[in-house]
């Protein structure tokens, strides 16, 4: 996984995402959509811990400027550049919205 910015696309590793929303806040044109819900975990410690469960992570590549700020701000390296080209051209604007499974597939296919 190469962390250097290049003219590739952006992939997500969902298990590493904590739904912290930093990428959503920092994205210059708000092309990242995250939905999550809180889950209370019994850790066996003094008190239960509440974590966010990621329900949806989508990037609108029709809007994305491929600036890489989301990759830079992610504290858990859940986002990374992949490949040498941007998302493929689409015949409908909605098909440029890549959902979590599609973004994760990109991550899994590039173990370079």
């Amino acid at each position, binding site marked *: 996984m190469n962390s250097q910015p290049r*003219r590739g696309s952006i992939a997500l590793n969902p298990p590493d995402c904590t739904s912290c929303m930093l990428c959503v806040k920092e994205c*210059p*044109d708000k092309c990242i959509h995250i939905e999550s819900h809180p889950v209370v975990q019994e850790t066996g410690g003094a008190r239960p811990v509440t974590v966010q469960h990621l329900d949806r992570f989508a990037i609108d*590549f*029709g809007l994305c*400027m491929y600036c890489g700020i989301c990759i830079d701000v992610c504290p858990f390296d859940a986002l990374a550049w992949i490949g040498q*080209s941007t998302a493929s*051209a689409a*015949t409908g604007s909605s098909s440029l919205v890549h959902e979590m499974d599609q973004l994760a597939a990109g991550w899994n296919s590039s173990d370079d």
Partner: protein
Amino acid sequence: MQDTTPVAVVVDGQPVQLWAVEAGLACCGVEYAAATTLVGQLQAQTSIDLDAFATSDSANVLVVSGTVTTALAPYVVALYQRMGPGARVMSFGACAATGGPYWDSYAVVDGVDRLVPVDVYVPGCPPSPEALIDGLRTLLLDVRA
């Protein structure tokens, strides 16, 4: 807005004439011009007579490259209507597809598909020349299907 300029390119051996919206839009127009120059150089060895094709009146693809402001929107629509039936439309870059970073601006059309039907969206800010070729391939596959 200036008049349109036909550009002929070859993708997978098939000639495609692009009718680019020149000037008046935004930076993607410059990137598009640079990209088509590169495509032309890449296809320099082709046996197809591109010059003859480029003078044809049958421009078939309108490339909207750049930010479509509300002030320029009527010109884009007029350009599309002038091309006649069968015209294909390519949205080139984030601004043409969705408004890009200006999607929330009062003065920008947030997606040229609000004005004319779009056949293919090429992502990027700006799209690379490779992305343009990818978009043309997608368009050709769509036409053949």
